[in-house]
């Protein structure tokens, strides 16, 4: 069924189709609509899930972890300060190997108080061990939500799917919402081998002395490494069922490209138009959509980018004292390759400032023209 829905509601429909069993959430703009619709599904009986109202995001994640450990498919959604408040529990979800799925609507951190989009909230959680997937359209949001449960439960790692505040969360566009039977065929019930059981009580997460802790960490990293192949496989399987797939990353018109632009989130969508326009003019430019951010799809990024003469990266985020976070990742991926292309780093659109085709075009033009970037980080559109 095709329906015109917001990005937020695309998440809700995905969670309903995935038959989540426990939803625990605390409202925060711009996420609230996600769980608002889910609470209606629960109240009306359209979704057979326990909706747990909690007093904070920290508790929301704690509830999800416990639900997941007891064998229930668990979901929550949040943004910005809500995600920051969850920080401790984000580590816990990973360490306990609970396959919780969360939607984070990218919202800038305050102060100055903002509800608009940038990626600093989710990227500040880069190192907690969650799988992170950045989405470009409402269709991708719905599809990724369904995929996320399957990925999480296969590798026993929590998955965060991420979408831009307002530009997706509050924007309505046509979304193909699959039938329940189709989704049931793709996504079997969550079946945890060892689960919390009141009749056979056990304690989890106890003191782990230096003889054991390191191995647990190693196994988390190993699971991340193995997750790359799993995400790819599930994405291909998804295509067989639903006709759509997204890849770990997506190269767009990168063959023979001299300059490749790297983007994430909704900027990718607008950038496609710019690439098409410049290709029509005979310019050899391409686009790389960075979708799965953690685990890092190192090999595929290298394979696509090393052939370019120059790479430019757009970051809607900033690691203070360093620069754009995606650019930093791309540089690290390319390091050590013989004759690796120079990386031009651009920061744009913080706090939801609009990013237009003109902005994107000028970034590509600059990279094309300039022998080397004038600064290690170029701030596009900052008014000084």
């Amino acid at each position, binding site marked *: 069924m*095709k329906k*015109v829905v917001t990005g937020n509601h695309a998440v809700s429909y995905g969670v309903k189709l995935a038959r989540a069993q426990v939803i625990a959430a605390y409202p925060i703009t711009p996420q609230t609509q996600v769980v608002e619709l889910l609470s209606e599904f629960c109240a009306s009986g359209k979704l057979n899930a326990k909706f747990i109202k909690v007093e904070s995001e920290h508790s929301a994640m704690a509830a999800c972890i416990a639900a997941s450990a007891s064998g229930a498919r668990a979901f929550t959604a949040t943004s910005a300060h809500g995600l920051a408040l969850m920080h401790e529990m984000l580590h816990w979800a990973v360490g306990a190997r609970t396959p919780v799925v969360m939607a984070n609507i990218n919202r800038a951190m305050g102060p100055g108080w903002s509800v608009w989009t940038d990626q600093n909230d989710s990227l500040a959680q880069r190192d907690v061990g969650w799988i992170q997937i950045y989405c470009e359209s409402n269709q991708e949001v719905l599809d990724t939500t369904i995929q996320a449960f399957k990925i999480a439960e296969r590798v026993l790692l929590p998955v965060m799917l991420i979408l831009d505040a307002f530009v997706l969360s509050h924007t309505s566009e046509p979304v193909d919402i699959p039938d329940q039977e189709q989704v049931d065929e793709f996504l079997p019930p969550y079946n945890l081998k060892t689960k919390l059981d009141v009749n056979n009580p056990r304690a989890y997460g106890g003191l782990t002395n230096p003889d054991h802790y390191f191995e647990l960490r190693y196994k988390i990293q190993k699971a991340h490494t193995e997750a790359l192949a799993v995400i790819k496989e599930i994405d291909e399987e998804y295509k067989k069922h639903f006709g759509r797939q997204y890849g770990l990353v997506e190269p767009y018109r990168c063959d023979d490209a001299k300059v490749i632009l790297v983007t994430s989130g909704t900027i990718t969508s607008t950038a496609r*138009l710019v690439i098409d326009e410049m290709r029509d003019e005979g310019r050899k430019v391409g686009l790389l959509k960075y979708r799965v951010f953690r685990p890092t799809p190192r090999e595929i990024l290298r394979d696509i980018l090393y052939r370019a003469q120059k790479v430019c990266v757009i970051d809607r985020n900033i690691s203070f004292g360093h620069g754009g976070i995606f650019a930093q990742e791309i540089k690290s991926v390319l390091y050590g390759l013989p004759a690796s292309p120079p990386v031009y780093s651009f920061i744009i659109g913080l706090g939801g400032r609009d990013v237009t085709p003109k902005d994107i075009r000028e970034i590509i033009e600059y990279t094309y023209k300039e022998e080397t970037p004038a600064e290690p980080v170029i701030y596009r559109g900052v008014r000084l």
Partner: protein
Amino acid sequence: MKEIRFHGRGGQGAVIASEILATALFAEGKYVQTFPEFGVERRGAPVQAFLRFDTKPILLRCKVYTPDDIVVLDPMLVRTVNITQGLKPNGWILLNYPDNLDIHKTLQLHPEFKNYRLATVDATKIAIKYRLGPKTAPIVNTAILGAFVRITNYVTLEQVIDGIKEYVPLKIDENIEATKEAYEMVREIQS
């Protein structure tokens, strides 16, 4: 691609109007994208909503800067908001405007309206007649849509009525009647 901007006040239903129109266009085979002005809406404060539609998928994800047409749900907004900002020449301005006031006085204050096509409908009167919202703050969105599809022909009245059935939670019949009445009552103003 066509781009439409709705001007209203929080509570008048500008965002829902845009969503109903998007659903109607989608039902007729168009690709659509609609979004409110990004921010925190407050009842009575000026709000905007935007709609894009096209015959191919819409990849552009930035604000609407140069709309093809604008729809104004509150006549008083003309005084405080630069409603024609970026409006393409010869685009439609559809204004909710009281029948008992002379539009030419507004035109004298806004000579720039001459660059566009102007149409008015008393959507407030129609909404009050069908008891849509309180008398002091009627919900005019369904009425104004009837007028808009009449002047633009972007989509049929029937399709908009189907959209209303999907989106409007209460007084569906009254909303449909208001839409039909505005469809009949809208007038192009010759400047």
